[in-house]
């Protein structure tokens, strides 16, 4: 089976760089499955998991604020943050979930969009860490 190179890069470092069989991501327009030899494409990503299928096993990576560039034999995901399930700090994610929810409940002058984004990030992290 053919594979392609997947790279996940954050501003701090490159966190992933391996040959994989397939990835499934959440694009802004909906879920996208990328197989080798996909047409070159660029799409922003939603906050959500990236599912990586590699020789029969599946990995999850929590990605936030990213976009993806697809080429024939290489896919690059640039994200503001990307974490393996084992790297997720569950306590912190829970705390930020509660904080964001509180802020959304009593909306004052606080930035709604920011609270929503932070809630999404927290939920994404919790979901991914519970799955693995």
């Amino acid at each position, binding site marked *: 089976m053919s594979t392609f190179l997947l790279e996940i*890069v*954050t*501003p*701090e*470092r*490159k966190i992933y760089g391996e040959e994989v069989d397939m990835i499934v991501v959440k*694009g*802004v*327009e909906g879920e*996208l499955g990328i197989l080798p030899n996909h*047409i*070159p*494409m*660029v*799409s*922003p990503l939603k906050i959500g998991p990236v599912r990586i299928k590699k020789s029969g096993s599946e990995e999850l990576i929590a990605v936030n*604020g990213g*976009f993806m*560039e697809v*080429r024939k034999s290489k896919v*690059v995901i*640039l994200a*503001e*943050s990307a974490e393996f399930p084992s790297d997720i700090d569950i306590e912190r994610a829970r705390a930020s979930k509660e904080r964001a929810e509180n802020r959304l409940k009593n909306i004052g002058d606080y930035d709604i969009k920011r609270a929503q984004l932070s809630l999404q990030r927290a939920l994404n992290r919790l979901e991914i860490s519970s799955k693995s």
Partner: protein
Amino acid sequence: MAKGMREIKRSIKSTQNTKQMTKAMEMIAASRLKKTQDAALASRPYADKLKEVISNIAAGTKDIDHPMLEQREIKRTGYLVITSDRGMAGGYNANLLRKLVQTLNERHQSPDEYALFVMGRKGRDFLRKRGYAIQEELVGISDSPQFADVKSIAYAAIRQYEEGGIDELYLVYSQFINAISQKPTEKRILPLQEDMSGESSTTEYEYEPNAATVLAILLPKYAETLVYSAVIEAKASEFGARMTAMGNASKNATKLISSLTLQYNRARQAAITQEISEIVAGANAQS
């Protein structure tokens, strides 16, 4: 023991203590500098890739239209100033702030014409004391800054630009030339003026949902990345400056200690000589 001797001894001790401290700080700065340089290197791929994709879009689509690329009439200018939280870094903060104040005075007639975004305790305190209005501030950045730490202030500045609060944005920071020299610099990051239409790969991309939307998402990200790399560079400069300053301090302490030791030995010899001559005089008087 003469009284002078004890005092000299005490100041030797205290200088030695100071030297120990400056030496430790120098070594810490040196190791942090190394780490920061690595971080700067590690952040390159992200920025490069982002730029590549943006220039690809710019090259592929005709007449792209985005507020971040268009030159507006300048009514108000934003300055994002990056200083350090701690001192003991020689002229690092002082040089930068002097340059900033100079620029502000030269370029603007009234404080309404600029907005200040300040990072670092030193810069904030300096500007606040002199009565400059600070729009946004950020203190307590760690020694190895993460992207998320920097994002809040970068986002605030960029949003101001998008909303039309400011018409251009400058970064004011210390450029890292090498470990012993740093240069206060200002760099205009908004509107983005880099040559985006330069060389680009031949790959034709599909954009989802379309090129304009992708561009609208990527441009602010790119601006944030520029801020982040400036912060890392400023951190490297800070450690470089601190290393040099502390190195000089240690050297001065060594010099001081040796001159004090000389003084001490002289005083000791004088005391001994005096004692001997007293004894001899006493013996002579008896015989």
